[in-house]
């Protein structure tokens, strides 16, 4: 087993691959890739999908209580989240939510278009489509969905896609409603915006088949390409996000939630592998000390508010707490827990030295404790805690710390954690310290963790289990007839790897291929090649490279209809010379999407050599002079070509012009 000292603290690509042996650690990673579907309306109501607002014109206050699962058990996460006693506010805007999102109207029937797109996605991922779709309720008590559950249904199972010379297994694909966007989370109050709520998305779950951070990055990109290849999913910020499930041998599945970029996932997986390995070391250390079971962890906590009334450690004084509350307008019983300001010391018998056990790069076990305290006890001020292994340094530091040790009867083998805030919350915090250590006797707890930009993670919640699922009694099951599936299968584009192979064989660069598949240009390429007889390489170049620049200039390229593109290549067939003026023609097509491209080409005089062009070129060659005399060979030719083609591009081929010029320049060159 690796020891902490072996593991590099930074997470650059170079050190990642060389200094940590993922295979030895037994790294296993699976993905849950979320992809919004491109529909007009939301999944269970008729609100517009994809209309985001930053304002609100109404709000609702709610709370969540855990309920029983179908098999009669409470889910652990549900109970945890109930403990946090959150006040939940939903911000509403009339333009994008109705009473369904407010949980004041039952769901309407499942949006059939969303189901069709989900089936398409399943087929693209090689899944078997289920015979009867059952909508389930998946509990989320964090408030991210006002009902307290997400409506979700398995549509496909058992998919396989080629991946790095082997197969990546798709365990299942579910169709589900998107959640709210978090606006703020402060103390006992969390605020959500409801605009995104209810938009249809699919979640693609892979088996834990991935073995290195690089594979994780590649797999995310691959699934993304598959999803986007139909053109029926949303693209852009927030349209796709993934949860990354990581474990090492002896560890447990930990879900890193809401990773928006594949490259970020690479860093996060690396860090999580290290964290798990180190938590296993801590477990071994606890076992050496005879703390082998959760019940072996005992804590004692003390109200020590009086010890710090005049402390230099300003956080521990009532005045600074009051200032924080006043500045942020935190209301007792709303953002704040009940009770007066308290400083609470938690004594951890026999745990000296363990708080500073390293976990993630630059972090220790104290960070694990702080995460739970922040989330569950809702003590979110910084820092969340002080502890005996890194007591802050100040003038009276030693004196105050000694007083603390005496008050708590803390011996040399013990550790101390100090928290502060509303009394009720500090008591919850003390209990969370105990629970986190109890979990540590068993190694790695099942957790959902939020990713931090630097590749580290922080506690978000306990990982929910199957106990949070129960059937949606508001929605009937839906039979999927084979005819419907076949109808959807027929027009599907080829899988990205099929296209990739075909394009690569034609010599198209990899980056262009990926762009085409990601942005839906591949569909147009195949259309004009298969139906318009276009040259594959030309089509790839046009749709994969050149249009990028035009699009960036804000031209309405996407307004150009398929038929117009077919016509465009038909014109090229009869007048190949127009290819040289393609940007000009496309630009005009984008401006007049309803006009026949042939007419547009004629109006630009494309395809026809103007009368007297030869004479004009010859005259140009004879009269034009470079503004400096000693030009290098070819420079004069290029200069003249530029002048001539300015007028003749798309009318006379560059080749013909060049030949004429060469002939004319002759000896001069």
């Amino acid at each position, binding site marked *: 087993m690796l020891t902490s000292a072996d593991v590099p603290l930074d997470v650059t690509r170079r050190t990642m691959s060389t200094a940590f042996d993922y295979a030895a650690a037994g790294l296993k990673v699976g993905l849950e890739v979320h992809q919004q579907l491109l529909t007009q309306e939301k999944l269970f109501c008729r609100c517009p999908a994809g209309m985001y607002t930053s304002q*609100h*014109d*109404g*709000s*609702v*206050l*709610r*709370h*969540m*209580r*855990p*309920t*029983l*699962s*179908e*098999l*009669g058990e*409470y889910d652990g996460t*549900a109970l945890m989240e109930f403990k946090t006693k959150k006040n939940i*506010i939903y911000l*509403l805007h*009339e333009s994008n939510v109705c*009473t369904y999102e*407010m*949980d*004041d*109207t*039952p769901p309407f029937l499942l949006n059939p278009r969303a189901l069709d797109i989900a089936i398409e996605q399943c087929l693209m991922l090689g899944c*078997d489509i*289920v*015979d*009867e*779709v*059952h909508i*389930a*309720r*998946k*509990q989320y*008590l964090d408030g991210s969905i*006002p*009902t*307290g*559950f997400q409506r979700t*249904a*398995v549509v496909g*199972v*058992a998919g396989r896609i080629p991946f790095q010379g082997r197969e990546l297994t798709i365990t*299942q694909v*579910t169709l589900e409603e998107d959640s709210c966007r978090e606006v703020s989370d402060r103390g006992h109050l969390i605020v959500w915006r409801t605009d995104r709520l209810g938009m249809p998305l699919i979640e693609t779950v892979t088996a834990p088949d991935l073995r290195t951070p690089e594979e994780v990055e590649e797999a995310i990109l691959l699934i993304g390409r598959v999803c986007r290849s139909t053109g029926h999913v949303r693209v852009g910020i927030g349209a796709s996000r993934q949860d990354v499930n990581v474990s090492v041998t002896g560890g447990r599945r930990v879900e890193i939630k809401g990773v928006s970029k594949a490259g970020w996932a690479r860093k996060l997986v690396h860090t999580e592998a290290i964290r798990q390995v180190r938590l296993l070391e801590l477990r071994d250390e606890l076992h050496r000390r005879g703390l082998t079971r959760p019940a072996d962890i005992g804590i004692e906590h003390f109200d020590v508010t009086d010890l710090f009334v005049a402390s230099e450690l300003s956080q521990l004084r009532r005045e600074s707490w009051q200032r924080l509350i006043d500045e942020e307008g935190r209301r007792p019983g709303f953002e704040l827990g009940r009770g007066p300001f308290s400083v609470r010391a938690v004594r951890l018998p026999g745990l000296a030295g363990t708080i500073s056990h390293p976990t993630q790069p630059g972090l220790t076990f104290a960070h694990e404790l702080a995460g739970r305290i922040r989330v569950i006890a809702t003590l979110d001020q910084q820092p969340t805690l002080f502890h005996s292994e890194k007591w802050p340094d100040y003038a009276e530091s030693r004196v105050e710390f000694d007083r603390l040790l005496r008050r708590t009867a803390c011996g040399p083998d013990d550790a101390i954690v100090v928290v502060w805030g509303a009394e009720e919350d500090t008591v919850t915090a003390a209990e969370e310290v105990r629970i986190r250590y109890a979990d540590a006797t068993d190694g790695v707890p099942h957790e959902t963790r939020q990713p931090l930009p630097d590749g580290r993670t922080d506690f978000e919640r306990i990982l929910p*289990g*199957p*106990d*949070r*699922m*129960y*059937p949606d*009694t508001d929605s*009937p*099951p839906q*039979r999927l007839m084979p005819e419907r599936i076949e109808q959807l299968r027929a027009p599907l584009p080829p899988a990205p790897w099929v296209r990739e192979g075909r394009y690569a064989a034609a010599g198209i660069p990899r980056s262009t291929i990926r762009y085409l598949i990601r942005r839906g240009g591949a569909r147009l390429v195949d259309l004009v090649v298969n139906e318009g007889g276009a040259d594959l390489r030309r089509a790839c170049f046009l749709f994969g490279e050149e249009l990028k620049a035009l699009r960036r200039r804000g031209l309405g390229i996407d307004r150009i209809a398929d038929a117009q593109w077919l016509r465009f290549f038909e014109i090229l067939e009869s007048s190949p010379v127009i290819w040289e003026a393609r940007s000009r023609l496309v630009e005009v097509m984008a401006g007049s999407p309803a006009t026949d491209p042939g007419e547009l080409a004629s109006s630009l005089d494309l395809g026809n050599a103007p009368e007297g062009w030869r004479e004009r070129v010859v005259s140009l060659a004879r009269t034009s002079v470079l503004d400096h005399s000693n030009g290098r060979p070819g420079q004069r030719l290029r200069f003249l070509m530029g002048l001539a083609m300015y007028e003749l591009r798309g009318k006379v081929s560059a080749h013909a012009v060049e030949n004429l010029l060469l002939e004319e320049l002759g000896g001069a060159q």
Partner: protein
Amino acid sequence: MSCSDELKGYRGRARQRLGEWGVRVWSDVRVTNTAGSVFEGVILPRSETFDDLHLVLKLHNGYNVGVHVDRISTIEEIGYREAVYKIPEKEFPARPDLPKVTLLGTGGTIASRLDYRTGAVIPAFTPGELYGAVPELADLCNLTTKKIFGVFSENMSWPEYATLAGAIGEEIEAGADGIVIGHGTDTMGHTAAILSFMVQNLPVPVVLVGSQRSSDRPSSDAALNLIHAVRAAAYGDIAEVQICMFGPTSDRYALLHRGTRCRKMHSSYRSTFRTVGDTPLCLVSRDEFTILNGDYARRDSERQVRIDPTYDDRVTILYYYPGMKPDLVDALVDRGYRGIVIAGTGLGHVNKPLYPALERAVRAGVQVMMTVQTLWGYAQMYVYDTGRDLLDLGVVPLDNMLPETALMKLGWVLGHTDQHAEVKRLMQTPISHEITAREPHNGYLILQGGLPEVEDFITSHWK
């Protein structure tokens, strides 16, 4: 367990195949289909309203899927996991210092669990179950529960009303400090109205409560409604029949509505109940009561309750619409109805072609009452000729009594007398504010969205 239970809900082909495979509901199975996909999970009971072609599996990850029985190539039982679906039951703690509250159950979803067969929710009801689900109740009262019946509220009717009235009397005799009635919300208004007549001279509060979001969901209003209702019953000062439901849709406070003046106004909103033509009685939060309408009967343990559960159920509401044919009225008379409450237009009108039929009805001894389908406002039949004509025919105007309340009261009155003059006197004499002398100007408030001042209000208050 009988054989039929083992295949609960499965019919036809699916049932036959399950029998052939030798697996049953709650079998933990590995199913391989013709495409080679493997499903591992527990066979769930199937709703009888679903088709007979699919097997419902709860996969080990918690999702349910339906597998077509003809697509199954192999099925192997690897275990058996019968769900024990039960709300954790803890003994409700006895606290001699707290008031005694009786919860009478009629059905509905005040606390519930799922039923696989129908997909419906089954009420959880014993104090122990309720304590498991809503532990806060133990801080409020000593709770006794009695299940009077288990019906959906649309199935509540006259015999149930009479039984319920009797049960309330018994609990009060037995010393309850307050009574809570768990009730489905659809007809809660009707029950509240009839109980206001069948149960008079109350010494303690009688509070009807339900939920708009069933208690099997985390966002349910059931727990908070129950807490508010128990508080109103145990500590509230209003000794009348009242409805306790969410004031706003937010989890903030409940409103207590008088049983005779209350109506369900939205098919699914939490704040569906509204007092019509008056202000609600009281606002109940977790910490306090705020009286909104001081004109109520105060709690008084000396008062002797009077239970009067007599009724005649041959009564109906005629919801008038333009072009209504007189044969409808004739048919009601022919079928033996004894009382008709008309929900008329405007101030209490119907069209002229109906007059002869109404006259025939009155002459046949049928009591014809007039209320307004506008819900707010009074039947004022002296204003127009049409109204005066109807009065001449013997139609009795009921001022601002709500049509449903009038129906309930008429059924109750007809249980006592058939004499037109006496029926008229009883109907027009309010017993529990079903007719009010005055309509306060804030008794009719239907704010309209879009207006700047209303938008100002709703953006600055939780809905």
